[in-house]
């Protein structure tokens, strides 16, 4: 009975926290996880705010084209900056389409629209340190054929995309032997320290000059054109015509050099995206820049919310599942197997799978964290009970205890040490995994980490990573105290 009451309180809490999200008169702006996308998204957001037709919700730092596009398609976000090449390759999946006009036609049945080009072409390029280029006499991509052993670190997206590395390799007949995947933001540090020699970059990249990198000439004209455009839901233009009109004024206003400069303001001069956006728009409007501590407090709450809610759900579902597993052998093996399998799905992949069902943001993140949290709890409940000395079970029956009484007064208290250590493991793992939830717009410490990765700014990365580690420690400590309360004194002796 107590259990049911707790459960219904929990469900009420969950439903309330989601019920509050009203989407009326709000435009949700998304971005990907790299500096340029953040800056453009911030510019878009400010333009919308200035028009005043709708409020703006910022869902920045969504992890990758798959996630951010699904979010746009399902209406979780309304607009984000995208590139023509990406739209034709990844979304329409027809690289022969290149013009904005043709893309518009192809997108018409999806109820999506794009603006004209914002003015710059941010295409993929292959770069290496000028000194390396001179030493090895590499000037063009074709020249790489003479150096198959060169240390290559490509971004994960570039390695996977149809128009990325596989196609490049084919087009040039390359046979590179040392290729690893690397987070884009880390590539510069890696190239600086000599861990890699060659990487993919964007042609508007702020760090081209800073790290003295040379772009290899694309002598076969392999790379398609990636003109930046505004990618939006048709409804946005229909419901907020003034806003869309104002946004269209951005068309053709940002040239390659301008974008490179804006990127540099953020990445090298360490300006916030908001400051860069305001500067670009030539305004002196005082930003509502919140203090670092306030921001940290906010993300801490977001993070704690993700961890605690998913943990509580995992306990409420995982413990009964573990108990069921001890009672029915076949079903038990099935439960353990499924919860084990869930653990093997890479976190980001699981988040992506969940988007079609739960959209982006907090809910799918909670579901993913809940699923990850299950295994340690289910397994420890199961093994805690199954490994008990059978004498205790026999004694309980000899004393006439019912199955429920046996569970409540004998098995669970005796298994409590193992059970709680499962919950502890689950909580600590969740603190870490929850940082990935930022990639689908759920906030938390991951927001700081991915922003830091985008800016290649170690302090920003640490401002997310250190509190996350501290939170894991604090939660661990809390459980140590809880141990004293929950685990019966008799078995702690």
């Amino acid at each position, binding site marked *: 009975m107590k259990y049911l009451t707790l459960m219904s309180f929990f469900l009420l809490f969950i439903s309330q926290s989601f019920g509050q999200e009203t989407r009326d008169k709000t435009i949700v702006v998304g971005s990907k996880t790299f500096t340029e996308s953040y800056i453009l998204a911030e510019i878009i957001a400010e333009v919308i705010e200035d028009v005043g037709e709708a409020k703006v919700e910022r869902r920045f730092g969504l992890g990758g084209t798959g996630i951010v596009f699904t979010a746009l398609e399902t209406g979780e976000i309304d607009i984000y900056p995208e590139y023509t090449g990406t739209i034709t390759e990844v979304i329409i999946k027809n690289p022969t389409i290149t013009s904005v006009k043709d893309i518009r036609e192809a997108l018409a049945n999806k109820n999506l629209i794009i603006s004209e080009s914002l003015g710059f072409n941010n295409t993929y390029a292959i770069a290496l340190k000028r000194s390396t280029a001179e030493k090895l006499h590499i000037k063009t991509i074709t020249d790489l054929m003479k150096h198959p052993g060169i240390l290559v670190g490509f971004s994960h997206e570039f390695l996977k995309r149809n128009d990325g590395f596989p196609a490049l390799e084919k087009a040039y007949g390359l046979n590179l032997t040392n290729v690893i995947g690397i987070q884009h933001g880390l590539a510069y540090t890696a190239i600086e320290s000599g861990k890699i020699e060659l990487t993919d970059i964007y042609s508007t990249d702020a760090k081209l000059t800073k790290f003295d990198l040379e772009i290899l000439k694309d002598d076969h004209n392999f790379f398609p054109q990636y003109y930046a455009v505004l990618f939006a839901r048709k409804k946005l233009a229909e419901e907020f015509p003034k806003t869309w009109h104002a946004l269209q004024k951005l068309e053709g206003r940002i040239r390659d050099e301008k974008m490179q400069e804006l990127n540099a303001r953020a990445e090298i001069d360490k300006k916030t995206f908001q400051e860069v956006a305001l500067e670009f728009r030539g305004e002196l409007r005082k930003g509502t820049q919140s203090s670092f501590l306030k921001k940290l407090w906010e993300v801490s709450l977001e993070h704690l919310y993700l961890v605690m809610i998913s943990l509580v759900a995992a306990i409420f579902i995982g413990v009964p599942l573990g108990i069921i597993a001890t009672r029915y052998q076949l079903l038990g093996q099935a439960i353990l197997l499924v919860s084990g399998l869930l653990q093997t799905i890479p976190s980001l992949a699981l988040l992506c799978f969940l988007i079609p069902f739960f959209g982006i943001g907090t809910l799918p993140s909670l579901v993913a964290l809940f699923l990850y949290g299950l295994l340690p709890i289910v397994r420890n409940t199961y093994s805690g009970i199954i490994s008990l000395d059978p*004498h*205790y079970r*026999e*004694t309980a*029956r*000899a*004393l*006439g*205890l*019912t199955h429920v*009484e046996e569970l409540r*007064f*004998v098995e669970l*208290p*005796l298994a*409590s040490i193992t059970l709680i250590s499962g919950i502890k493991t689950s909580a600590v793992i969740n603190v870490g995994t929850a940082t990935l939830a930022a990639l689908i717009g759920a906030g938390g410490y991951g927001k700081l980490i991915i922003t830091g990765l985008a800016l290649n700014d170690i302090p920003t990365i640490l401002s997310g990573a250190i509190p996350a580690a501290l939170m894991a420690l604090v939660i661990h400590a809390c459980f140590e105290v809880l141990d004293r309360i929950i685990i*019966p*004194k*008799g*078995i702690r*002796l």
Partner: protein
Amino acid sequence: MISLHAVSKAYDGKVIVHNLTTSFHKEKIHILLGPSGSGKTTILRLIMGLIEPDTGEIQINDTIVSRQKHRDIASQIGYVIQESGLFPHLSAKENVTLVAKLRGWKKESIQKRLEELLRLVNLDNDSIRRYPQELSGGQRKRVSLMRALMLDPPYLLLDEPLGALDPIIRSELQAELKRIFSVLKKTVILVTHDINEAALFGDTISLFHQGAIIQQGTFEELCIKPTTTFVTQFIDAQKPPQNIRKFL
């Protein structure tokens, strides 16, 4: 009366109890005596309904055990499990009173019964508040007996109740148990492999060998009129060696 009719039980093809028919009369003390592995403990577990017989049936006062709930059996029979079987997460007091609490006894009734039992088994108020790990072997045995007697059942089963105790404590507790049995006037079935214990407590002794009763009777009958050579062998084996008997 507890009676067994043609009861057999095997584990993994090994016969533990073989076609056993016997009965245990009211208010007597019955000893199941025999070497380890002779099926004595299995008989107790069968009577408690913890395992079911492969063939045959067991009755408690004309009710068939396998058709009864554990809860109803527990009201009738108190069971002192081997190694005392106290729950380590509960204090001695909680171990003793658990069943009464679960049956909704009033606090005062529980307290009253607890005090009665403390006096009966001669245990102090301080020990009963401790956890099993904090008690001596002898104290644990007393607590275990209290737990079995909490609901005041008419039958009491004890599986090696004085096993694993040092000789002095063991002999003290034997005397106490003898006294307790005489006060209680319950039907007792006690499992032991110790012939002296059997002689001390038993109104009847059933000597087990390989899942069957070889001989049933009083201690005197077993000594004077052994039915097989095994009976003589078993009794002789526990006598002190000839050369030290004169010192004892």
